[in-house]
Each structure stands twice: as structure tokens, then as C-alpha cells.
């Protein structure tokens, strides 16, 4: 059916149909992507691990806080091979304290995923608003917002995040602080992609037609632009999660994250520095967990991008 450009309502009605058709092809492509699927499965596994952390670590009768000094030698090292792996401690125990590493990794996944997803949501909202504004309005607004985006990208973000840590009171929950700062610095990649897509959409016939029949900008944004941006935004948001998780781990590694004894992968890796020569297995549990979840989400994000928006491949890192 040829698009009826001048008969107002018919054109917008056409758009979702086309989008749905494109999307069903996308799901087929996603299902055919073995790397992407494996990534999705591993990521889902970590979500389950985080959700059921208490019951899963409860199977072996553990929690991340109890000291098991009986599992340690007199010099504070785990008894037995592989950092004290046993039926009671599936991933071994922490040196010095003997806390169960499986429980620490499972509870640590909660902080990682909470901050990773929370910060990404915040960054996506900010990035979408600024990107749509810059792309749809164009002109001076676009110039100023694009400059601001470039400045934010080039900024020494980690340094600023650490510095801002001095301003929040000790009683303020650090996980929300991290969501706020990682989100506040994470939006530029979203804004850039959304801006580009919005600019392309702005000149499409269905948007021009809606403008011609006198639709208000907000109405056009809601009914024409945003639905067509949904796939792109989902892809870029998914691709941003591993970066946010990495930043959370880096902040915790530097000692700016959630305070002990709340388990956190980054802090465990940081404590492992002192033990790496005598108990290298201590590093393995949190290190592999962080690496795996990042790799899985990267693979899933890449698969999602290739499936939904093949043109975007290569444009992002």
C-alpha cells in the first residue's frame, strides 16, 4: 500500500505496522545470534543470583557476614585447595575472616546490578530528553546541547565522581549516590545517538505530514518520534549497562562505594590486592563474576544492536 501522505491520520497509522514488521524480523535475527543469546542467558543467571541471593547462599547455610575462622589456617589463609573450596563453601572463603565467597558474590551482584541498571535508566532518561530536544529543535539549542555533550564526554568523570563523594553525608545510602553520579555522567552516548536518529526522523514524510495538519510538537514527539526511537533507545540502554557496572566496581575498588560489610565485587577485588601473592584464588570469585557479567551484557547488547538496528553497528564502541 503506498503511503497516503496528505490524508492526515492514515499516515501515522501506517508507521507502527512497518515498525512491527521490522521488529518481528529483529527477533528472528536475535534468536539466530548465538553469542547474543548466550550473553542474555548468563545475564539472566546473574539477575536470578542477585534476586535469590539469600536463599541460594542459604542452601549451604551461609550468609556474607558470618566469620568462619575454622576454615582458615593460623596465618589467616583458607584451608584446602582453590582458596578453600568445599561443599560448605562453594567458591571458597575470604582470607583473614573466612566469610563465604559464594554468598559475597551473590549479594555483591545485587549492588552491581542495582547500580548498573539504575544508573543506566537515569542516563537513558536524561540522554533521551536532551537528544530529542537537540535533534528536533536544531539550531542554537542543538549547538549548545552538542557542545555540552562533548564537554561531558571529555570530562575527567571518575575524578569528579570521587570528589562529589565528599559532599554526601555518611548516612546517605552510597548505592543511590552511585546511581546518581554514574547516571549524571552517563547520558552523552544516549544523547548523541538519539539526537542523530531524531534529526533523521524529523524530515521523514509522516512527521512532516503531522506538522502539516497542525499537530503540536509534544504530540508529534509522543506519537511519531518516540515510538520510532524505542528500539534504538532500548539497544543503547542495554549497551550502556556493562559500562555502568564497571564504573560502580571501579568506585567500590577505590573505596568510594557501599561501605563494608555490605558485599561489593569492586571492594572484594580491592582487598584481594593484598592477598594476591599468597591466596590468588581470592581474586577469582569476584573477578570472574565481574568479567562474566560484563562480557555477557556486552554480547547481548551487541546482538540486540545487530538485530534491531544493523545500521548502528560500528558507530558505537
Amino acid at each position: 500500500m503506498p503511503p497516503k501522505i496528505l490524508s492526515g491520520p492514515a499516515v501515522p497509522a501506517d508507521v507502527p505496522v512497518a515498525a512491527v514488521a521490522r521488529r518481528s524480523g529483529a527477533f528472528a535475527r536475535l534468536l539466530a545470534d548465538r553469542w547474543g543469546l548466550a550473553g542474555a542467558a548468563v545475564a539472566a543467571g546473574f539477575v536470578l543470583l542477585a534476586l535469590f541471593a539469600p536463599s541460594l547462599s542459604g542452601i549451604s547455610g551461609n550468609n556474607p557476614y558470618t566469620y568462619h575462622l575454622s576454615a582458615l589456617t593460623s596465618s589467616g589463609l583458607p584451608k584446602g585447595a582453590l582458596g578453600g573450596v568445599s561443599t560448605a563453601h562453594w567458591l571458597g572463603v575470604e582470607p583473614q575472616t573466612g566469610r563465604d565467597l559464594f554468598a559475597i558474590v551473590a549479594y555483591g551482584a545485587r549492588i552491581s546490578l542495582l547500580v548498573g541498571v539504575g544508573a543506566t535508566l537515569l542516563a537513558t532518561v536524561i540522554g533521551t530528553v536532551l537528544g530529542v530536544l537537540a535533534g528536533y529543535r536544531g539550531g542554537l539549542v542543538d549547538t549548545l546541547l552538542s557542545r555540552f555533550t562533548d564537554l561531558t564526554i571529555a570530562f575527567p568523570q571518575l575524578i569528579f565522581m570521587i570528589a562529589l563523594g565528599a559532599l554526601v553525608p555518611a548516612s546517605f545510602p552510597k548505592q543511590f549516590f552511585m546511581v546518581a553520579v554514574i547516571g549524571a555522567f552517563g547520558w552523552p552516548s544516549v544523547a548523541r545517538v538519539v539526537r542523530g536518529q531524531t534529526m533523521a526522523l524529523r524530515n521523514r514524510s509522516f512527521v512532516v505530514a503531522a506538522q502539516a495538519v497542525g499537530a503540536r510538537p509534544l504530540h508529534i514527539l509522543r506519537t511519531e518520534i518516540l515510538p520510532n526511537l524505542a528500539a534504538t533507545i532500548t539497544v543503547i540502554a542495554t549497551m550502556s549497562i556493562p559500562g555502568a557496572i564497571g564504573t560502580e566496581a571501579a568506585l567500590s575498588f577505590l573505596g568510594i562505594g557501599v561501605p563494608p560489610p555490605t558485599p561489593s565485587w569492586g571492594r572484594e577485588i580491592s582487598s584481594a590486592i593484598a592477598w594476591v601473592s599468597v591466596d590468588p584464588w581470592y581474586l577469582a570469585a569476584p573477578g570472574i563474576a565481574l568479567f562474566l557479567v560484563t562480557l555477557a551484557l556486552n554480547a547481548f547488547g551487541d546482538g540486540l544492536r545487530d538485530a534491531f538496528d544493523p545500521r548502528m553497528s560500528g558507530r558505537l564502541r
Partner: protein
Amino acid sequence: MKLTRFLLNKLAGMIAVLLLVSLATFLIFYILPANPARTECGRLCTPNELRDVRAFMGLAQPVWHQYLNFLTAIFAGRTYGSGAGAIVCPAPCLGYSFQQNRTVLSLIGQTLPVTASIAVGAAVLWLVTGTAAGVVSALRHGKATDRVVMTTAIVGVSAPSYLVGLLAILLFGFKLNILPVSGYVSLLQSPGQWAFHLILPWCTLAFISAAIYGRLTRSQMLDALGEDYVRTARAKGLLERRVVVRHALRNVMIPIVTMFGLDVGALLGGAVITEKVYSMYGLGALLIGAVQTTDLSTISGVTLLAAVFVLVANFLVDLTYKLLDPRV
């Protein structure tokens, strides 16, 4: 003439951004905290001391005046208080740390060489090895070398640098025992030991970025090698090496340099993480210590310096850009 105008333009933009950043830093770290004098003075602060500190910091004046003081101190220096107890902070004064009883500049002067050594060395290493790996894998497209570089890039992107660093410490430090795993030796004291102690930090920080840059160079190089100007150069009978270096690589370098400009901030963050892995006392350790003691002068000094670092690096990037691409 045109170059002078270009430089002046860029310089003016840089100063404008620097003023904005300094204003933001000032507002965030001097105005936002409910009582900066109180935090500056510390927990065991008597009312008398608090009054002194307020006077010292010039907090009785209006906000805009305080900012002006903050700015002029950078160029003209500043004296806190008066009489026998006065503290002179000579220009360029970035503030005075009442916790450590030292000027912020001297604290930075002590720690900056460590962080800068890590950052600059790693940046050179990643640019050189990343570009080289990308060119080689593009020229050997589809062969084993290509696949090794690309696999490293994909896996490398998911491994945080501190994890790579700890594995490197384990392998080269403790298992093979061939490289030092901690400590910083001043360049002036012993250039050889300086470089020897920095080998692992450099490789740690450069590894992942080199992989990313390798991947970017490869795809750009493959595109460039298919372009008409490369075919023309080849048709003229130029040596393959000259075609690759003078014609293809020169164009490939433009996006690489652009990306590097965006990565300078991340480079500084990476250096801060790396110095912690290798137990070196650099800017990051100074900043984290300052955050833990709410030493706001030091915090704002370090953040301002980091912003200057990024701006200057971007200025250099723009300059390189100009040299690579005469059209800019």
C-alpha cells in the same frame, strides 16, 4: 596567519570553558557544603578556631567576591589571615589544605608526577601499539594475526583494567618474579628505575585501550584501503609502504585522534585506578584521602587540575587534527 587565528580561537574557547569549570568547581565545593569552615576546620574545632578559619577562608564576604578571590589567588597568590599567624599561599595558589597544613599546589606537585607518568606513558603505548596492531591486522585481513587482535579486543573490552593489572602482578611479579609490582621511583632520581617500575602499570592501563584502538584502526584502514585515492596511489606505482603510511594511515589517524581527545578524561580515571593497583601515591590517593577527611580545598584543586589536563590535551588534539587534515 590562518594558523594563528585558529590557535587564538581555540585558546579563547579553552579559557571560556576553564572559567566555567572553575566556577562550577567553586560553587560545588565552597558554596554547596552547609558549612565549609566547619568541615575545613575538622571535627575537633573550638568556636574560636572556627571563627579564625572563617576569617582565614574569607567566608564573610559575598559569594561573587569569594569567587574573585579564588580566581585572583591562582594568578597573584593569597594570604590567609594577617599578622604572625598568616599563611602565605604564593601564586599559582589553588587553595590551602588546613587538614594537612600545606598548600594544595605542593600536595599536587608531590603526587602529579606519579599519575602523569602513568597516564602519559600508557597513552603513548596504547596509541602506538593499538594503531600498529590495527594496521597489521587490516593488511593481514582474515589471517590468524587478524583474528588474534580482534579476539583480544572483544575480550579486552569486558575486563576492567584493575583485574588485568592484578593478573599481571600475579604472573610477572610473583610467578615469574621479573618485574616490580609496586612503588614509584622519581624520573629525576633514576630514569631507568622509573621506567622499570612503570612497565606493568603502563601495560595494564594500555592493554584494553590498545585493543579498542586496534579494532577502530582496523575497520578504518580496511575502508581506506578500498578508497579511490589509495587505488590511484597504487596505480602511480608508489611503494606499498608509502601508500599505506602516507595515504591510508594519514586519513585513518583523523578518527583515531578524535577518539583520543574524548578518552583523555577516561585516561586520567584509569591512571587513578592503576596507581591504586600498584600501590603508588598519586593524585588518586591524594583525592581519595581528601574525600575521606572532607578536605575541600584539596578536592577542588585536584578536580580543577584534572579539568585543565583534559582541556590542554584536547587543545593538543585539535592541533594534531589541523596538521593531519588541512581542511579543518
